[in-house]
């Protein structure tokens, strides 16, 4: 069940990147880390999920990918520094991924509410609890998606 849910986030990420950025995402890996994990992630966008299942999902990228995604949203404007507009653009992109994932989850019978995105910068993403991590590659670089479950899904 959990892997079916994770797949909806994976598909939503590919779909939204294709629609919004016209960038083709290639999923290169999907791994389950039962005891948590830690890896470099300069930019992290976290969203909470409640309802059909409880958990969080995170979109992790380096600054270069964030700048390119923000540039597309801003009509091709050149971005060379991280600022609030870049933060807003990648937050909105994550919001669209959340929306697409919610739509797919509802079609599976899981009615979920997703919170507003929280964008943060740091050196690494680290969690001590179990999570799935999907890795993607595109022309802009790498992107990772982490999905954590606080409760098991209940299919209606």
């Amino acid at each position, binding site marked *: 069940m959990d892997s079916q849910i994770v797949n909806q986030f994976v598909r939503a990420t590919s779909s*939204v990147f294709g*629609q*919004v950025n016209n960038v083709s995402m290639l999923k290169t890996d999907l791994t389950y880390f039962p005891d948590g994990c830690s890896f470099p992630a300069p930019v992290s966008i976290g969203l909470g999920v409640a309802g059909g299942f409880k958990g969080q999902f995170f979109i992790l990228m380096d600054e270069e990918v964030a700048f390119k995604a*923000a540039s597309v*949203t*801003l*009509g091709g404007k050149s971005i060379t520094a991280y600022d*609030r*507009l870049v933060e*807003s*653009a990648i*937050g*909105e992109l994550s*919001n*669209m991924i*959340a*929306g*697409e994932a*919610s*739509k797919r989850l*509802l079609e599976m019978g899981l*009615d979920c509410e*997703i*919170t*507003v995105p929280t964008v943060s910068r740091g050196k690494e993403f680290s969690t001590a609890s179990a999570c799935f991590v999907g890795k993607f590659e595109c022309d802009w670089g790498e992107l990772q998606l982490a999905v954590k479950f606080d409760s098991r899904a209940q299919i209606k």
Partner: protein
Amino acid sequence: MGKKILVVDDASVVRMTLKQLFESYHYTVLEAETGEEAVQKYQSFKPDLVTMDITMPDMDGITAVKEILKLDAKAKIIMCSALGQSNKVKAAVEAGAKTFIVKPLHPERVLTTVKKYLD
């Protein structure tokens, strides 16, 4: 003076993009970042149309639609949200929104929809 549009979205990049789009077509635009701010600004700005996000801090967009319609039963509100699942669309329309545009927002589609309800 052009017709007035209130753009409601917690993402500054969305507000900026829609503001630039509408102003290039000579609409007068005011922005609100939350549902609560939208209700307050609706009363003072008296817009001809509102574009409304759903997921926002404090008051969400569907509650804001209901609150605005209590103030003005003829308010024209278009939802612009990433949440395109059927239950959200239904809830928004039942709350009184005229229609629902799912993000990503395509300028032509947004303009066509706005013009349809303003003309």
